[in-house]
């Protein structure tokens, strides 16, 4: 042991440590600068929603607000002028029903694809999976024309129908992978005891797949909530407008109000997905890992 200590070069060690310390300060400085850059738009957003329209037009965009009260007026104006009551409840309906039904149907499909033995599974799986390979642009014109023909264009039913369908393939892929990893002994035991297939599905497989089902539900709900493209094409009537569509329409016609009101509307519109993200961060990150979305 002594020989090892003799060969140690203490100067070199100290030099290396000093260099490491200096480089860690450099890393911190650069990281701080990048963060500042990334936060600048958020800072602008936060100071703006606390200003009245008059204050906004006469002050520097970076100036802190004079008081916190104006946000109440901004929220009320935004809520009324952007018809956000419609937008929020419509989007909650589309997201809840669309993502909920889609994940349920996907779980049923995954059950049929993994828990029973028969030939021809690959073909059925490929059919469902085909729903993920085409870009959204290929659905727009045919759906618009077909919806018009059967009279469900600009209806809540039409919106929910589409959102349910588009959200099925991806959860099916995830749940199929997950369910094929679950042991089938429990199923067989339950069948032996005389349980029907539906009981096996609802009582044994579903409870075990709750984790990935929640994760995929959140991802699909957020996707529906954030969607602008399809809600613009298939639901462009004031009463059925989604929240993102309302926001875009409001931004385009803000003659009577200022950026302070529009940005308040934008923040309110983002609140549900922000809350969902923070409340269920772990599931969200899990979902990210699964999907890479």
């Amino acid at each position, binding site marked *: 042991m002594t020989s090892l200590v003799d060969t140690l070069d203490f100067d070199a060690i100290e030099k290396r440590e000093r260099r490491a310390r200096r480089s860690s300060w450099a890393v911190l400085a650069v990281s701080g600068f990048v963060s500042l850059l990334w936060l600048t738009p958020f800072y602008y957003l936060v100071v703006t929603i606390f200003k009245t329209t008059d204050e906004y037009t006469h002050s520097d965009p970076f100036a802190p607000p004079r008081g916190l009260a104006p946000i109440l007026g901004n929220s009320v104006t935004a809520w009324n002028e952007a018809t956000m009551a419609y937008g929020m409840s419509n989007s909650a309906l589309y997201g809840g029903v669309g993502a909920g039904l889609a994940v349920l149907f996907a779980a049923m499909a995954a*059950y049929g694809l993994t828990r*029973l033995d028969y030939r021809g599974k690959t073909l059925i799986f490929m059919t469902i999976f085909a729903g993920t*390979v085409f*870009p959204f642009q*290929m659905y*727009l014109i045919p759906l618009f024309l077909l919806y018009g023909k059967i009279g469900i264009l600009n209806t809540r039913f039409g919106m929910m129908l589409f959102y349910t369908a588009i959200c*099925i393939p991806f959860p099916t892929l995830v749940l199929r992978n997950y369910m094929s990893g679950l042991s089938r002994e429990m199923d067989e035991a339950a069948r032996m005891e005389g349980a029907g297939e539906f009981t096996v599905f609802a009582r044994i497989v579903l409870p075990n797949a709750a984790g990935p089902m929640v994760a995929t539900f959140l991802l699909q709900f957020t996707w529906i909530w954030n969607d602008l493209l399809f809600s613009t094409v298939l639901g462009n009537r004031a009463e059925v407008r989604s929240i993102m569509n309302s926001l875009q329409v409001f931004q385009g016609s803000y003659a009577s109000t200022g950026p302070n009101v529009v940005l308040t509307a934008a923040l309110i519109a983002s609140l549900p997905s922000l809350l969902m993200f923070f409340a269920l961060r772990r599931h969200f990150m899990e979902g990210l890992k699964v999907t890479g979305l």
Partner: protein
Amino acid sequence: MSRRRETDAQLLARIGLDAVARRERARQNHNRLVALAFMAPALVLVIGVLLVPVGYNLYLSVMNWRKFKGFDQFAGAGNYFDMGSSPYFFDALANTAIWVAASLAFPIAIGLALALLFRGARFEDAFKNIVFLPRILAPTAVAVLWIYVYAPHGVVNRILQMVLGHDVDIGWLYQQSTITASIIVTFVWQTVGLVMVLLLLGLNALPKDPIEAARIDGASPFQSFRHIVLPLLAPTLLMVSILCVLAGFTVFDLLWVMGAGYPGLRTLSLAIFMYFEAFQKGGWSFGSAVAVVIGLIVLSVTWLQAWLQHRIDQNLK
């Protein structure tokens, strides 16, 4: 009870081979019916609402649409040739190419740099969360926010004024020379966080031994990054690149909301061009043909990804 528990071998001994085969077939048929009942809602919705429309899109793209008559004429490849004679199409195509290149290069370069910078640094989680933050806003809200950031009296011009010392009032979103670059900056601001997180997941999953061995053998940090980390990271980089290419290729929200005030809106990208031609001008057949072109490009990118993935998997084995 004892009969139900009897194994195939026992049954075979009792009644013979044919009966076993018949029983197996009956069981398969029964299972298939049960499975079909479970899969029916998903299959009906996917086929009816997604796959049939894709087929209808193909049909529309080879027909002619006329007012009051509908799609009554076969046009063959006519709609596709029309694209060649539309000057806007080539502008949209060129802009899309710029978008794809930029949405591939910038998010990956910056995302990788930030991943390497933040990894192991003090306050790593805080920095990561800050850069990821824009991702949890809705794209439409991001677009609305940046409209004001780029406004003549907005944030960007104010910063330039502080740096340059004189008034700046550039309409970033209203002139051809700046609009695409401006929206790309917003796109990068929004996507880099996700790219960084995915690359960090990839980096943290790398085996430690080869990197450690290279360090002991005296490789500089740059050398070990270039020759060891980068090749090992290739599968992750490939996945992230494809995500970026597809996102950049089909981006709609940012361009549609932020470009709304720009007179040449339809030239901003193929996706916008298609929307504009169909839903604002009523060129249903022509729009369908553009959608088919978009579909073909996306499918070839996906195919390329599968092929490359296969190659990489083979190399790793």
